[in-house]
């Protein structure tokens, strides 16, 4: 594939696992095998890498309705769960964004940053496929960005939900599902 010149990589919620976050994760995901080489590829080609992380205030006041479903307490400030994962740790040239909700567009300056960078196409990796990745993709699409989701570098809450979220993203944009290999063998426009 050809990576358009106005592209950026969104690394979504690859955070330190301190073992306390009550969030389901599918078994056998290849995200941490593939994410480092994808990030390296974008850095090498001088394309923006934007690292998103979720954080909630320690007194829990900003959870909204997030604890009414499957997820328990997660990403509390003051714990290691709000640190970036060492395997995909940001470097100085990466852009950092902290969010309080699933979508990286909600209540953040992501749209503003993308506009300033002149970005038109987003590549998504991280987690969870059926939660933060899905609804960041939906908001990107609704905000007129082209998007690609790297199917073997995203992790779902379970395999079934992972599969249907990817299918939904394909409904929105036909060619949106790509693989790590597509990126590593791609040329940059």
């Amino acid at each position, binding site marked *: 594939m050809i990576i358009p010149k106005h592209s950026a990589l969104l690394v979504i919620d690859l955070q330190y696992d301190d073992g306390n976050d009550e969030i389901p994760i599918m078994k056998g995901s290849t995200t941490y095998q593939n994410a480092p080489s994808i990030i390296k590829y974008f850095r090498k080609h001088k394309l923006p890498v934007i690292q998103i992380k979720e954080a909630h205030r320690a007194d829990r006041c900003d959870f*909204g*309705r*997030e604890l*009414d*479903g*499957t*997820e328990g307490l997660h990403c509390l400030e003051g714990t290691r769960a709000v640190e970036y994962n060492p395997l995909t740790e940001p470097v100085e040239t990466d852009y950092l964004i902290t969010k309080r*909700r*699933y*979508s990286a567009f*909600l209540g953040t300056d992501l749209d503003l940053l993308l506009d300033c960078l002149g970005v038109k196409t987003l590549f998504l990796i991280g987690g969870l496929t*059926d*939660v933060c990745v*899905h*609804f960041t993709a*939906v*908001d990107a*699409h*609704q*905000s*007129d*960005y*082209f998007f690609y989701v790297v199917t073997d570098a995203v992790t779902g*809450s379970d395999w*079934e*939900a992972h599969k*249907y*979220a990817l*299918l*939904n993203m*394909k*409904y*929105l*944009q*036909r060619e*949106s599902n790509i693989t790590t290999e597509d990126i590593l063998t791609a040329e940059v426009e």
Partner: protein
Amino acid sequence: MKIPENSALLLVDVQDSKVKIPVYQSEEQKERQNIYHENVRKTTEYFRSLKNVPIIHIIELHRDDLIDFGRELDGSEHVHCLEKDSFFWEPTAPIEGEYTVPKRRYSAFFGTDLEILLRGLGARHLFICGAMTDICVHFTAVDAHQRNYHIHVIKDACGTHSPAGVAKAAFDNIEYFQRGSVITMEELMK
């Protein structure tokens, strides 16, 4: 169920067009559409009979010169919901005292005054039905949840032509966000 005091009903894209796009093609899909239509009509009548729950009709409309489609034509959907062709589905069309919100995107919160209206109404609980289950209903429900509303999605009054597994996955995802948020008409009216 007991409807909380600060509730509103969102009817998502219960609309019709002068130009029929045949998305419900197979006999099974047509049958599904008939059941959905019958159920969304009954649900609307039920809320009207309560008299104290605001009813908000969402309609997707795109400008006739196609300028506002954004990326919507890059996937499965073709040109749809043009202003010159679109109108509310007659059996549930807004009556006096009901609200209308036009939108350009899937989510009813995106680029609309829905939140301004909900704040004015003091609504905290949203009852949601309409179409398509796996797109506009799903994304509107998730956006409502992310904006701190309690959601109640009336499963059998939602419609889609997508395969059955797709609708189920959307409902499962909504339940992931808020336990007990997906309800049936029977539970609603009990």
